[in-house]
């Protein structure tokens, strides 16, 4: 796609072992266009967080390293830019909100100053940095932004801290926002408000959003398109409505079935996927989902499928067409 703002091409990430590198992200292709909201869904160990960290060259190296692949921001390969340019991109053009907000803030510095520091390091004068900090703290729905600005992290609740992190990410008006499970700790009413806030900001700025989550409900309410990850690969790509109406990978289908729906009977057994997610360093040949898959056949043990077009914009890494399930 030529209109991609951020494009991850054939990304492979390895973890160093005594016998060499084990691949734990195995050829991920993901791209987002300006104004697009892309959900990245996967369980722990699926490689979703590592993929996002690799975008900003934040992988803990060693033992982790990018084995090959390209990260293109408007065509510029971030793997080969110098440190000065990388600092401009990080927190400037691409901002990231992390899973654990408490550990991403300095406990000894007032939160307002931490946001101002981010702005100043991206070239803002200190007065305008302060005004902008007030503005973004108000935007994320904090009732008393002035009090929050002057607070230390420990004086704020988890929900407030998470809003502060989102404010910090939005302060520099990034072109790409990467949010890694930023709302898991929040009450549903606040989650919803943050999702709506991000959507409204997007409408005015054309920011692209990568929303990493394991919660399909969040995906349904926020994003346009979804990439489902399993064992270090993207196993399904679809528009959000297609994904829910007609999942084309058995894993996606199983995930959807395991949620208690509004129609499911009280205390009736929920659908279980069975088994556990595989250890990405010990995959062997064949499709990594086959051991948990109700539709697995011989072919699935022999070769791992690439993404196959299943119509209406859905791609799935599965040998079987959903009509044969």
């Amino acid at each position, binding site marked *: 796609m030529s209109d991609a703002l951020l494009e991850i091409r054939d990304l492979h990430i390895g973890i160093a072992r005594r016998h060499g590198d084990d691949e734990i992200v195995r050829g991920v292709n993901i791209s987002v266009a300006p104004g697009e909201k892309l959900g990245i869904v996967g369980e722990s160990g699926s490689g979703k967080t590592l993929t996002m960290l690799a975008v900003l060259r934040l992988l803990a190296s060693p033992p982790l390293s990018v084995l090959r692949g390209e990260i293109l921001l408007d065509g510029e390969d971030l793997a080969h830019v110098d440190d000065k340019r990388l600092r401009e991109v990080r927190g400037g053009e691409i901002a990231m909100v992390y899973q654990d907000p408490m550990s991403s803030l300095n406990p000894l510095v007032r939160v307002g100053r931490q946001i101002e520091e981010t702005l100043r390091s991206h070239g803002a004068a200190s007065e305008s940095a302060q005004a902008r900090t007030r503005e973004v703290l108000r935007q994320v729905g*904090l009732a008393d932004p002035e009090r929050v600005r002057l607070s230390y992290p420990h004086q704020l609740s988890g929900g407030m801290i998470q809003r502060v992190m989102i404010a910090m990410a939005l302060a520099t008006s990034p072109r790409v926002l990467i949010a890694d499970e930023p709302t898991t700790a929040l009450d549903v*009413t606040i989650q919803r408000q943050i999702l709506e806030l991000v959507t409204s900001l997007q409408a005015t700025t054309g920011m692209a959003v990568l929303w990493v989550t394991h919660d399909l409900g969040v995906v349904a309410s926020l994003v346009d398109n979804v990439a489902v990850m399993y064992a270090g690969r993207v196993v399904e790509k679809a528009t959000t409505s297609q994904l829910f109406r007609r999942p084309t990978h058995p894993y996606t289908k199983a995930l959807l079935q395991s949620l*208690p729906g509004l129609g499911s009977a009280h205390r009736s057994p929920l659908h279980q996927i069975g088994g556990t997610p595989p250890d990405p360093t010990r995959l062997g040949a064949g499709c990594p989902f086959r051991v948990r898959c109700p539709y697995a056949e011989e072919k699935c043990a022999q070769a791992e499928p690439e993404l196959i077009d299943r119509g209406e914009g859905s791609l799935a890494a599965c040998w079987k067409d959903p009509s044969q399930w």
Partner: protein
Amino acid sequence: MVDLALSASHLTKVYGGQRGETRVNALNDVSLDLERGTTFGIVGESGCGKSTLARLLVGLEAPTSGELRIDGETIVTSERSASRQLARKIQLVFQDPFSSLDPRMTVEKALLEVLKVHALHADTRAERVAELLSMVGLTPRFAARYPHELSGGQAQRVAIARALAIEPEILVLDEPTSALDVSVRAEIINLLVRIQDELKLTYLFISHDLSMVRHISEDIAVMYLGKVVEKGRYDQVFVTPLHPYTQALEDAIPLPDPEHERSRQSAGVSMHVQVEQVAQGCPYAPRCALVQQRCRDAAPVLSEKSDGHLVSCFVAMDATP
């Protein structure tokens, strides 16, 4: 007569207040009855007091005031001996199984330790360990594993087995599935339902995940800033929610259905996060869309609106059904 496994009346917990510290009413006059063999669900956002409630019920902390009765017996939670006496009857399962298991103890050792502390099954401990593991759906080979060799779901199963080791009557489950992957949540919920039926256990199920609470609970209480604002049977609370906060929570549940999702209207309620308790009036008033002057003047009390369905809201009480 309803057979009550646990009855808490007017539990209040106040933190701070000494030497000019701010007083925080973490729990404010909470009463609830757990009918034996059923599940009581507690819903609320972080900071609503649901974890404080859990800690009071299992005796990790003493209430500032209020009374706790288990099996009809009053528990004096300020007494030291109360904790072991309580432990035999009521156990707590935490959100994060890894932080509640000792990383240097194998599964077997962790389970044996509990049996030793409570002097149970002196001659048949090894068999009991195997039995506990099978109860939570783990094969005997898991006995030799350390916590880091377990997946999240397996570790939570071990934590549940450990809680069951001393044959309690009540399990307090504080967000037992929130730290788990989506694909294993259903397994743990199914496991909890099965064990409950087999052992006739009583559950207090605490979660911010409304769809899970609705799925598993017979009775539900919705908490807001330390108070119960609505209480009733699960179908009452979910089909005909009375309190504006419960309604807002339900409107906000992200549904796994984009069609439905897009057709929904935003509740139009102020979602500003609120951490400070109001000096007077209804605690929810600053966020409420239906707020009236009387809500700011005085706090409503939890009152019965219809058969067993209680709400703490002036507006809901006045509304004709």
